[in-house]
């Protein structure tokens, strides 16, 4: 059986009396791509934020690679990276300067060598000297992924990485993620509102609704569980009926 990379137990987060994440538990195994699915406000992003230790849970436990996140924050965060369509990077720096900063921040050995590899892997040679403020959304997503791939993380968290992209750029982004996952065998937790993307990308799906896990399994298992035609139909049923 594959090694457990993420073990979440009874994780709960409340904001001003509202429960955003309600005693969720799940495991993610090495090399898996897990889709975290749910309507707006289901608790997907809050879960990712707790896995990154930028939101503190009210209760519950997060173990990454067998170690408690709250006790081994720095060691664990060195093995995790993330990309999100909601965040950016310093606009006044070039693409390469931004990558250099993050390479230092994560204390990478052979920094320049790894930067060259990532620039090559993501086909960013023409962007390396461009100022970040001049990048298009697609290019910005690529830079965000480059920052995430740079550290060769054991666990990669991708929060709606294709949200602001046109279909062509979104398809290229998915291809990059798949290529990277095949090459390095890392574990990926992925959120998206695009059902086709979820089906295409995920080995398993964890379905959240109002902060609780309402279903978990492969796409086919979830479709069967709800007796629906496809994942989008499941999503609409869950979102509208609660």
């Amino acid at each position, binding site marked *: 059986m594959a090694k457990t990379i993420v073990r979440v137990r009874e994780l709960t*987060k409340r*904001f001003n009396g509202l429960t955003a994440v309600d005693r969720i538990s799940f495991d993610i195994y090495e090399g898996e791509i897990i889709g975290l699915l749910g309507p707006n406000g289901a608790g997907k992003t*809050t879960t990712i*934020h707790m896995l*990154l*230790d*930028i*939101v*503190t849970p009210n209760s519950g436990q997060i173990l990454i690679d067998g170690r408690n996140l709250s006790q081994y*924050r*720095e*060691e664990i*965060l*060195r093995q*995790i990276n*993330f990309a*999100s369509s*909601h*965040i*950016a*990077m*310093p*606009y*006044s720096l070039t693409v390469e300067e931004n990558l250099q900063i*993050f390479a230092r*921040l*994560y*204390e990478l050995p052979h920094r320049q060598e790894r930067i060259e590899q990532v620039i090559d892997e993501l086909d960013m040679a023409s962007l390396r000297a461009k100022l*970040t403020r001049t990048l298009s959304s697609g290019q910005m997503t690529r830079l965000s992924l480059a*920052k995430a791939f740079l550290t060769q993380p054991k666990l990669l968290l991708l929060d709606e990485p294709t949200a602001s992209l046109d279909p062509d750029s979104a398809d290229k982004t998915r291809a990059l993620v798949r290529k990277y996952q095949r090459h390095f065998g890392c574990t990926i937790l992925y959120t998206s509102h695009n059902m086709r993307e979820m089906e295409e990308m995920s080995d398993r799906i964890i379905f959240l609704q109002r902060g609780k896990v309402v279903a978990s399994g492969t796409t086919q298992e979830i479709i069967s569980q709800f007796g629906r035609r496809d994942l989008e139909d499941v999503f609409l049923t869950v979102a509208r009926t609660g």
Partner: protein
Amino acid sequence: MEIFYWPLLDLIVWGFITVYLAQFKNGLPSVVAFFIGALILWDILFRAQQGITISFLEEIWSRNLMNLFASPLKPGEFLAATMIISLSKVGAVLIVSVLVAWAFYSFNLFILGISLIPFILNLIIMGWVIGILTTAIIMRYGQEAEVLAWGMVFIFQPVSCVFYPISVLPGFLQTVAQLIPAAHVFEGMRDVITNSNFPLTELMWASGLNAIYLFAAILWFHYVYGVAKDKGILVRVGG
């Protein structure tokens, strides 16, 4: 802020300057040295504070804060980095100010002699303290508190006695001023210019107070960082 804060501060500071100047019927001795020296030293404090707060705001503006705090970077390391940025800004400002004061007004800041080094260090540390306090407030309350990056330091200006001695202030404000490290620095600066004394007592007060305040400010920053993580504010501010 434009309606009450700045006019009130201007009135207070200039009011005390006027009271001070009125004491000298035959002209103030070393007037250029007092005012230009004070202005340059005050700017050091201001830039030291800005170095910390604006660095933090730049991370918010570029939506990079989450990238930083979701990395192995510790909050203390982040603060240390902003302090280094602050030092480089202070260095640049100091060079420009000293040259301009010398070229335009024949004022040589180095008349302050060996005291200049502890003066500058104490002003930088007080700037850091105000910078850390302000940054923590912005972290807690978000961009609505952004204006404090430029305004907070001036709350301390009237009681820092930049352009007039502590004795000009009314009684209760004199007590407050005694607790402000910068007030001891500016008091010391006037003593050096007037009497050429090394202001050991003032510097000891400034250094002691700064040590306590810096320690407290760093603790405060870590506390607010914990609150921001707990309330999910870090994500809202930085994303």
